[in-house]
């Protein structure tokens, strides 16, 4: 049984690297990524699971890092926007003008990247289902959808 009672050193696998962090059981993954690992691509928006700006990928699935405890993540593979490394979706966002102010961009990139990996032939319905998890206050929705559709094989 794993037991963590107070701030402890734990190991996370982030962007393919084993990283040691200090985390309280009550710390969210978003907090740890930004303050312990200086990975600030995941943004603190609503911190309530609504906006999706803090989305990262855990074991291949998009996850809102404000809704995850850091201590839960031991043994899981975490990918942040810093770990994408010129993924096709990043190029597509540039080509299709998939952003304006950029605050929501990293979250959208992570959802779109996970979708392309999990369902490379996703249809429009599935694409919309996944994209509805994130908010863009500049309302770039159409361009974001075009960007992700351009890398899906349908």
């Amino acid at each position: 049984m794993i037991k963590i009672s107070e701030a402890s050193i734990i190991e996370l696998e982030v962007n393919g690297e084993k990283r040691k962090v200090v985390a309280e059981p009550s710390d969210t993954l978003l907090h740890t990524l930004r303050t312990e690992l200086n990975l600030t691509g995941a943004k603190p928006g609503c911190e309530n699971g609504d906006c999706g700006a803090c989305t990262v990928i855990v074991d291949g699935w998009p996850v809102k890092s404000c809704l995850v405890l850091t201590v839960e993540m031991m043994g899981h593979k975490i990918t942040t926007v810093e770990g994408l490394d010129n993924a096709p979706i990043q190029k597509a966002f540039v080509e299709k003008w998939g952003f304006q102010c950029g605050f929501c961009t990293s979250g959208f990139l992570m959802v779109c990247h996970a979708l392309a990996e999990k369902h490379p032939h996703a249809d429009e319905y599935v694409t919309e289902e996944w994209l509805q998890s994130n908010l863009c206050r500049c309302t770039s929705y159409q361009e974001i959808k075009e960007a992700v559709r351009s890398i899906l094989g349908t």
Partner: protein
Amino acid sequence: MIPFKFKYYKPDTLQEAFELYSHIASQGKTPMYYGGGTEIITMSRANNIRMDAVIDLKGIPECCGIEMVGGRLIIGSAVTLSRISESGLFPLLGQTAARIADHTVQCRLTIGGNICGTIIYKETVLPLMVCESRVVIYGKGGKREVQINQVFDNKLRLQPGEILTGIMTDSCYCSLPYVHVKKTKSDKIAYPLLTVVAVKKDNNIKAAFSGLTDHPFRSREIEDCINDENLSDDDKVNRIIGFQQISVLDDTEGSSGYRRFVLKNTLKNTLRMLEKVK
């Protein structure tokens, strides 16, 4: 940030989890079983709940699987809603799960959390009610298996420390013809004004509802009325709308009158859709 501290435990067995819960509770402290954490984290941040320890159930094998075994679909309570939808093993449950919160949240939200949480809608219960699913509960005397309709009364009636470990559904129910309709006030992703789930088995329609009252329910009176061959669809629906025992919610999501109006039309459509199925 969560504004208070607590301890985190991740037991490997149901016995460990149950004993740990009992031990913490016996010290006058508040333990909480933890699945996906979506509700516990958001409510903790808003100071709506407070606990001294969370007991993460995701390390317990019985809570984590989804598989068809011996003609029954067994879903662990810590299985996420997206995993249920992606599996395609129980299309009605998958479709219901796919309309709760948003897709990314569904990748964390567990079926056990949806059923046992404090949010009143608990929509995943509806397919389980109409499909006569059984829940597996671990407690003082070990495991017990109960029909969900016997143990879900406004909420899942668990004794302190008891764990919902999983849900079992006969495979013949998983493939029944069904209707799932979720109506919201405006946005697609929102709490339900009304969610109706219905299946047709042996020419009988079974239906369950969420959003209409302050808890999900399945009603024998409603089903008797729906299946009364002497009544037209209009008569059935008008009778159901008039049932005084249904205490329809009246809140900012929708007035009771509007909810009844939505129920009327949704039920009519549901009956029409299921009538076409032999």
